[in-house]
């Protein structure tokens, strides 16, 4: 258990760093989803299934989707001009 938790804590730190370091917005969306997934696993290991569930639906699905939609419409905007 200790090892698993330690590994997941490190994973979350790594994915969070990934979100910051991926400067290309599209790649960043993937990083955000990965970070959300990492958090979900960590929360599960921390015995918080409710929170993990919430993070899974929001952090790995809804928020990245909104980011993608925004990026798509920005691309459209560029083409329109």
């Amino acid at each position, binding site marked *: 258990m200790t090892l698993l938790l330690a590994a997941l804590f490190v994973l979350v730190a790594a994915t969070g760093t990934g979100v910051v370091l991926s400067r290309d917005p599209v790649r960043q969306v993937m990083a955000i989803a990965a970070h959300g997934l990492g958090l979900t696993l960590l929360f599960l290991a921390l015995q918080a299934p409710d929170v993990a569930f*919430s993070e899974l639906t929001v952090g790995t699905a809804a928020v990245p989707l909104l980011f993608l*939609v*925004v990026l798509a419409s920005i691309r*459209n905007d560029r*083409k*329109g001009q």
Partner: protein
Amino acid sequence: MSVRFRLLLLIASTIILLPAVVVLALGMPAFGAHPLPYGDAINRDAPGQRHISNMVSAVNFDYRGFDTMGEEFMLVTAVTGAVMLLRGTRGESPGAEPEEVPGRSVQPAGEAIVLICRLMLPVSLLFGIYVVLHATATPGGGFQGGVIIASAVLLLYLGDGYRVWRSIVRSRLLHLCEGGAAAAFVLTGLVPMLLGHAFLENILPTGQFRDMLAGWLMQIENLAVAFAVAGGFAMLFLEFLEETRAPKGEE
């Protein structure tokens, strides 16, 4: 100010904060082994007092229900603000005719995709409702279930396309979902008060332990949250997706 100057500021801050963080980390109570009087009291008393098995829901919808009311209104506020910003000059009238953005190839969705989406829609809708209803027994509840329901509705867009999605998902209906649910939550507080109890006091019978519908007033609050979250997220999806289309008649 240049980025270099900002980084200097950050480095200076790090030099000050780093020792503080180390001292703090060393001074923190032992991970996983320190007393948690509040949580323990809930874990000890809530099953008996509230007859429900999910302690997180007990905290959210009963002991600290007032916080959840605030959170629900925060959600409604944020969604209202985002929708106001997105509609902006576009106005509210739905583009009945899907506009096509020049230079963007619009392929009709393949039949397989349409089929999968149509199949997935009821399944995920049911799953969302299941998650909502099991708030007091097992992991799940209005917050998570609401997001799932909103995402399920989004499958309409992916499968059947813009026109069907727009004709089924009406923003007025979503406003009703959100606003009505928020009003219902306040009423679960006000009605007990008008009957001579405290604000948000759980005056209904709490039902059987481990029963799906245990904790009556909590169920109502849970449903209110589910409607607000589902309505709010569906509204966000709707307005953001609308943005990917050029306004009508601009070509």
